[in-house]
């Protein structure tokens, strides 16, 4: 009993439980049976028909969750995931379409190009904070809009598939694709993202850099005193973050339907789901993986719930946000969101 009450007192368990209870109340309000609905979510997402779709979704959600968790571990919020991911996707598409290399090398080149594009764009946001003093939260988000517009323009005009009425590029040449598992839509991309998660776990737990990052997140003033160079760290973390977001975009293009389709990367809201997962886990590596998978299950299971109970799938999005609202109310991050100005203010307060 004490163990149960102890677990309930942990903000995380409390928040998830509160989210599920409020979700059940909403379901009751719409006249649906919560047990049937939640059962439909689970069987729909984890059953034989849904698991492939869940793993495909999980690839993107986990990729972006990691991308956003890595800077978050040091107290930096990157809100520009959409822009970085979409630039990665369109760059991978261009590389895939025009590379003169043989197919397997083209795939590798497209992945690398996508990562480079995402990383470069994220570094731009980091420079905005470092050099111009625009908070990262704001600069990364505002930069996202022109990137999404640019990719949309490219897919609709110069790169548009001739004769098609859809806003999409031509399909990539034969063989320029990530190998898929069996007949499913799950590709090698899942393995790449899983490797990234493992690398993050190792860095976080076993290396000096990981320690520095965690210390900066816990206490920016102490870590600055101990010699962590903040600007450099911001730059490095953002390039890794943007690179991962770009990788997710490239994986999306190198998997079914093997082309860049305008809106297909941003419409499912991977960036926000990923950020939610990272926040839920306080950016801890293993926790982020679990939370990302949990949200992928919710997202895919939501469709199954909609089919069986006629409750709109948007309910799962509501659930996610409620969990974070509850968590945030009990969460205390150091005020690093606003970079130097916030730190300086703190210093002034303590002096």
């Amino acid at each position: 009993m004490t163990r149960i009450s102890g677990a309930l007192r942990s903000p995380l368990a409390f928040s998830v439980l509160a989210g599920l209870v409020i979700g059940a109340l909403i379901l009751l309000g719409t006249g649906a049976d919560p047990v049937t609905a939640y059962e439909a979510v689970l069987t729909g997402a984890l059953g034989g028909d849904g698991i492939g779709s869940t793993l495909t979704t999980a690839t993107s959600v986990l990729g972006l969750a990691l991308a956003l968790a890595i800077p978050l571990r040091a107290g930096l919020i990157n809100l520009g995931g959409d822009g970085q991911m979409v630039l990665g996707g369109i760059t991978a598409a261009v590389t895939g379409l025009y590379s003169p290399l043989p197919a397997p090398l083209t795939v590798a080149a497209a992945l690398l190009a996508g990562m480079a594009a995402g990383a470069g764009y994220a570094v731009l946001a980091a420079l905005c904070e470092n050099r111009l003093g625009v908070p990262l939260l704001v600069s990364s988000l505002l930069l996202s809009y022109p990137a999404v517009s640019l990719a949309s323009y490219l897919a609709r005009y110069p790169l548009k598939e001739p004769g098609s009425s859809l806003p999409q590029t031509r399909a990539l040449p034969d063989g320029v694709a990530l190998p898929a598992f069996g007949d499913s839509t799950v590709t090698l991309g899942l393995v790449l993202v899983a490797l990234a998660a493992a690398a993050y776990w190792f860095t976080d737990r076993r290396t000096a850099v990981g320690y520095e990052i965690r210390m900066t997140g816990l206490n920016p003033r102490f870590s600055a005193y101990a010699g962590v160079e903040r600007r450099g760290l911001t730059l490095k973390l953002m390039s890794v973050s943007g690179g991962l977001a770009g990788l997710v975009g490239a994986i999306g293009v190198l998997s079914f339907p093997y082309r860049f389709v305008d809106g297909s990367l941003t419409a499912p809201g991977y960036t926000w789901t990923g950020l939610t997962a990272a926040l839920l886990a306080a950016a801890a590596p293993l926790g982020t993986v679990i939370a990302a998978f949990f949200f992928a299950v919710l997202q895919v299971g939501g469709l199954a719930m909609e089919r069986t109970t006629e409750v709109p799938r948007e309910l799962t999005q509501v659930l996610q946000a409620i969990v974070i609202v509850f968590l945030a109310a009990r969460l205390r991050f150091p005020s690093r969101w606003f970079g130097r100005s916030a730190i300086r203010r703190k210093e002034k307060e303590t002096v």
Partner: protein
Amino acid sequence: MFLDSDLLMSALRALTPILLAALGGALCERAGVFNIGLEGMMLMGCFTSVATSWFTGSPWLGVLAAALAAAAYSLILAVGAVTLRGDAVVLGIAMNLLAVGLTSFLLRTVFGVQGTFDDPSLAGLPLVGGFSPLAYLSWAAVAVAALLLSRHVWGLRLRGVGEAPDAAATLGVSPARYQYGVILLSGVLCGLAGAQLALGNVTLFTENMTAGRGWIAVVAVMLGRAAPLGVLLAALLFGLAEAAGFRLQGLGLPQQATDSAPYVVTLGALFLTTARRRRRPRTTGAVQ
């Protein structure tokens, strides 16, 4: 001619929702509450105003309901950040997400449609002299807020709460009370902003129709240094960018380029002002 009175008129029309939301954000900022939930509160206002206007046939009741609903929604931030001392940034992000999910969910359960609700019998706000009544209200609100902050004891205490909460508390001013007050007020203003967007600028509701305007409002607060007149100028800049975007689209520029114009202009303005400001010794940033 490109820069004519028509352009100014459409800029003034475009800026109203941003201005209302940014005024709310500025008041919160002055009281030491960083409010990035403006986008979500606006979106709640959009949906509530459309739903109420459709069921009652009165856009005015829609405006009233939007203000009340968004104020109620802002309680999440008030309770979470002021009473429970949670993280305001994470709360704001969660509120924005929740609003997108909740309004899309309600759109489907209440109206049974997905994406957009657009009905000819939906009553929008009338225009008075080319502007919606809420536009006049927003200008009046700027004047009132400016006077309150600079001349009135309420504004003085509010600023005190933001700058030195402990000192304010010693003088018998309750910081929590003032912070609750401005957060609720920002809810009301965001609700009005949402109503203007959904019943003034257009007459329909679309999923996620605020499309980053709440974030622009957050930036307008920074640009305007949380002062009502500064916020007005920042919102005007955004309005001009949006109006110029429409104009350029008419001249054949692709929609994607003009769509992103307001964000690029806002970011550019932010660069210029923060770069200049940083040369001065005192830093003004967002307050946690």
